Structures are given as structure tokens and as C-alpha cells.
């Protein structure tokens, strides 16, 4: 048994420490994903689920804890260094693609993600173009005929499908999906969802996905964890995940909401009594 694909150990992080907007976004998160695991993270707004993905991708160095990807401690490594083994798709299609580069150029760039260094060989040889066209054809969106179109001219759905392809073109150790269908119209979202499932199954990818769509949390993945106030508060796996229904998720949300109200009410009471 090799090392775990992702190992998050005791990760805590506070943004704006000491300032008026101090937020503890992550509060002692432990989460381990074995190879080929597909974990969906959900929770209320501000619960820390996107921050958790950012921590794995390397957008910031957490105050405490460590993060390992494929057995290697990446806690202090910069984003571009980790990106060799991490594929990432964000909510906004504009984040994942370079608008002024063509479709083929974007893909050629992604094709070198794991390369030790980018050299002075032509990025788009005839052979590379053919290979890329084949991969684009797998999307079944007709984009293989638009390899020389600047990315900016494509729709959000098309760009997001290509961003997904770019994230997986070189098989990543870990695929991070951050609500990557949330900004799309329903038809495009359905298309990207189909592609996401196909790619994950075909390449047996390890996936950490954030979603706030309850049906997706129920349908996708083999494990679902709920975050609240920077902590993991629920963890559905195995048979519990398979049995999971939307109603049960809604109950989870109701429970944390009640706990919040209680906290606030208690705080107000204490304030009245002592201040």
C-alpha cells in the first residue's frame, strides 16, 4: 500500500489575525484520501470548504498543521511547484484558461504541467496538435475544429470543459474541483458533470470536490464530509454515503443552524448579563 493521495493533518488557519475581520477559516482539519478516493466537501457558506481546497493547492501556508500530497510534504511549497501533481478547476471559467491564447496553446501549456522544465522546443508540433485534437474530441463538443480559436471567444461551458481537460491532461495525483459547475447554465453544467465523471472513472483519479448542490453531494463520490466553522462535523462514507439522501443533508444543515442560533443566543445572554 503506497502513501495516501492527500493527508491533511491538524490544519488551522486564521485570516486577518488581530484585525477587525479576523476569521478562523480552518480549525484543526484532519482528512485523509486514499488513492482513487472521491470526496465531496459540503457545508454552509463560510464554513471553510473552499479554503480547505486552497490550502491543498498552496494559495497560503496554514498557521498550523501539515499537508501531504502523494506522500510528499507540500505545506511550504509554492502553488506552481505543487501544481506538478495537482490539477485544479475553479468556479470561474476565466480562472482556468488564458483568454488570449488559443485552445491548442492552452492545452499545450497544460501538457507540460509535470515537465521538469519548459524548454525551447516548439509547443505545437504537428504530432502534438493531433494528440491534443484527439483529447479535445473526447469532450464531444466539436471543439477539435476550433483549436486555433482564442479561448476568450468560447462560452463559459466550453472554457470550463477545457479547463477540466487541462487539469487532467497530465494525470494529476489529486484533482481539486471547487464548485466548478456553479457558474454555468444548467445545460453546460450537465455537460461538464458528465465529463467530470467520465474522466474520474477512466483515469481513476483521486478527487477532492467542493459542492453546495445537495443532489451532487448525494450522487457523486464515495465519501461526503460536511464542514462548519472550519471543522469537519459530519463524515459519510461506505454504506452511509451510498444511503445518503438530500433530506438527511438538509437535516445536517438544520442541526448546525440551530447550534449557531443557540451559540448566538447564549452569547447575547452572556453579554447582557456581564457587560
Amino acid at each position, binding site marked *: 500500500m503506497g502513501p495516501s493521495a492527500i493527508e491533511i493533518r491538524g490544519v488551522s488557519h486564521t485570516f486577518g489575525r488581530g484585525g477587525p475581520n479576523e476569521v478562523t477559516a480552518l480549525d484543526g482539519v484532519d482528512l485523509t484520501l486514499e488513492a482513487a478516493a472521491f470526496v465531496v466537501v459540503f457545508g454552509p457558506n463560510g464554513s471553510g470548504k473552499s479554503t480547505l481546497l486552497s490550502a491543498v493547492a498552496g494559495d497560503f501556508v496554514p498557521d498550523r498543521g501539515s499537508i501531504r500530497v502523494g506522500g510528499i510534504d507540500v505545506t511550504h511549497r509554492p502553488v506552481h511547484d505543487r501544481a506538478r501533481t495537482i490539477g485544479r478547476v475553479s468556479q470561474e471559467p476565466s480562472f482556468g484558461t488564458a483568454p488570449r491564447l488559443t485552445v491548442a496553446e492552452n492545452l499545450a501549456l497544460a501538457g507540460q504541467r509535470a515537465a521538469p522544465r519548459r524548454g525551447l522546443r*516548439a509547443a505545437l508540433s504537428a504530432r502534438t496538435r493531433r494528440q491534443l485534437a484527439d483529447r479535445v474530441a473526447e469532450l464531444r463538443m466539436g471543439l477539435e475544429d476550433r483549436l486555433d480559436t482564442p479561448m476568450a471567444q468560447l462560452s463559459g461551458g466550453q472554457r470550463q470543459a477545457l479547463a477540466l481537460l487541462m487539469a487532467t491532461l497530465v494525470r494529476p495525483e489529486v484533482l481539486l474541483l471547487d464548485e466548478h459547475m456553479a457558474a454555468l447554465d444548467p445545460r453546460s453544467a450537465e455537460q461538464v458533470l458528465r465529463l467530470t465523471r467520465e474522466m474520474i472513472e477512466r483515469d481513476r483519479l483521486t478527487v477532492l470536490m467542493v459542492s453546495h448542490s445537495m443532489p451532487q453531494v448525494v450522487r457523486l463520490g464515495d465519501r461526503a464530509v460536511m464542514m462548519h466553522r472550519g471543522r469537519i462535523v459530519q463524515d459519510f462514507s461506505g454504506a452511509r454515503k451510498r444511503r445518503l439522501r438530500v433530506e438527511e443533508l438538509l437535516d445536517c444543515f438544520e442541526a448546525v443552524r440551530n447550534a449557531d442560533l443557540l451559540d448566538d443566543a447564549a452569547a447575547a445572554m452572556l453579554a447582557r448579563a456581564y457587560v
Partner: protein
Amino acid sequence: MNLLVGALAMGLLLSLATLGVFVGFRVLRLIDLTADGAFGIGAAVAATALVGGASPIAATLVGAAVGALAGLATGLLHTRFGIDALLAGILTSTALYSVMLSVMGGGELSIVTRETVFSGAERAWYRADGGDITVFGTTVAGASLASLALLLLIVPAVALGVAWFFRTHLGLALRAAGDNPRMARAQAVDIGWMTVLGVGLANGLVGFSGALFSQYQGFANVQMALGTFVTAVGCLVLGEALFGRERLGSELAGAIVGTLLFRLLVAAALRAGLDPNTLKMATAVFVVVILVAQNRVRRTLARPRGATGGAG
């Protein structure tokens, strides 16, 4: 006719600086005022090297290399020490002013009597039995034609080299770093290194242009680089108005043609009696006019799409 050939030659050699500014300003999207210093130091170093007895080709290459070093300095100030790119470029250019003075041992250095790449081209021209040419009743000196011919070899070659570079894996990463840094980072591109490399390349081209400029003029002085960046941006925008910004190839062609056109306009204005002392002012006004016109056109074109207006 001599004026025209001169303006074309000047346009060609300055288009190398425009290509350099294109790399910084359009590809990396940085306002990099190192250009002013890099052009001056390229010119000063090349002139000094010639006076010191260096071969013209070596002097030109050293000028370009020193320009590139100036760019690397700016790039490192910006990426490693977190100094704003605009400020970093001004800092480098300011420091280079002193370097120019000490390299040349004064404010100006004449190389009229020295062998330059252009005097070499001239001799080759006459050796190949090329003489003066008469067009429309005016005689164009063989020397001017030789310089023009040399530049017609150098500039397209450099432009093709830049185009080739931007289509390699490394060049593509550099373009992506400027176009969408967030995406580039997620594709394992080190933005800091790309910025240093790009600013170095940009100012290498500018230094190259400066080195040719001093040889063409027959002197170098500390003032002549002033406004290099602004003028290049004017040439760039002029070229973009003609060639668009859709394709890399047309952008590079636009940079060259824009500079040629700009120099022709300058030559025409001088001939029409414009006081040479007002040239910088005229250039600045010209660039402002182009930029304003460009914004107007863009807004007019954008209107039908944003049907309701206002919100756009």
C-alpha cells in the same frame, strides 16, 4: 527620397525597441520604464566598446546584453523584493543614468570616425558593386541604402526569432504568465521566473535597438533615450490600430509597421517645419491622441453589445 530612406532605416532600428516594449507592456502587461535606461545603456556601451576597439558586431551584442541585464535587475527588484514594477523600472533607469555617464566618461561620445555595423554594410555594398540609386530624379546615397539593407536583414530575423520563441514551451509559459497568472500558476508556471525572463528579454531587445541607434547616429549621449518607452507605446498602439491584436504574428508585424509609420510621420513633421526641440512634446501629444482615439473607437464598437448601456 534620402529623407524617406533615412526615416525607414530609423524606423526599422527603433522597431526593435518597440518589440521589446511589446514583450513587457503587452505580453507581461507590465509598465516597465527600464526601457529608457536600457536603450541609453545599450547605446552608451556599444559606443564605448567601439571607441575601445571592439568589433562592431561584438559592440552591438554587448549593448544588447547590458540592456538585458538592466531588465533582469528590474525583474528581480520586482519579483524578489516586491517593489512595484513601475517603480522598479524607474529605479533601474535612474541608476543607469549614472552608469551611462561613467561608462562614456561624460555626457556624450562620438563614434563618427569608428567602424560600425553600418560602415561595414556600406563597404560590403560598394564591394558588391552597389552604388547610388536614382529614384524619381533624386539620388539616394549607397551608404543609406546599405544601412537600410542591413536593417532589412536584422529586423525581420529578430522578429521571426521572437515569434519562434513565443511558440516554444517556454515562450508559451511566458505568454500565459502575462495573460492569466492564476491559470499559469495552476499549470506549474513560475510567474516570478517568467517575469524576470520576460523583462530581461524585453530590455535586451531595447538595448540592441539602442546599440544600433548610436552606431547609426554616430554618437551616444545620455539624453537620447528619454521617452523611449512612451514613443514605443505610441508605435505599438499605432500598429495595433492597423493590424489588430488577434494574432501574435500580426501583433509583431504591427509593432514594426507602427514604428516605421511613426518615424515617417516624424520625418514629415520635421520637414514641414516642426521645431526639433518640440519633438518630445509632439510625440507625447501624438500618443495621447492615439490612445484617446483608440478608447473612443473601442467604446463605440462595444455599445451595440451592451444594448442597455450604462452598466457596461
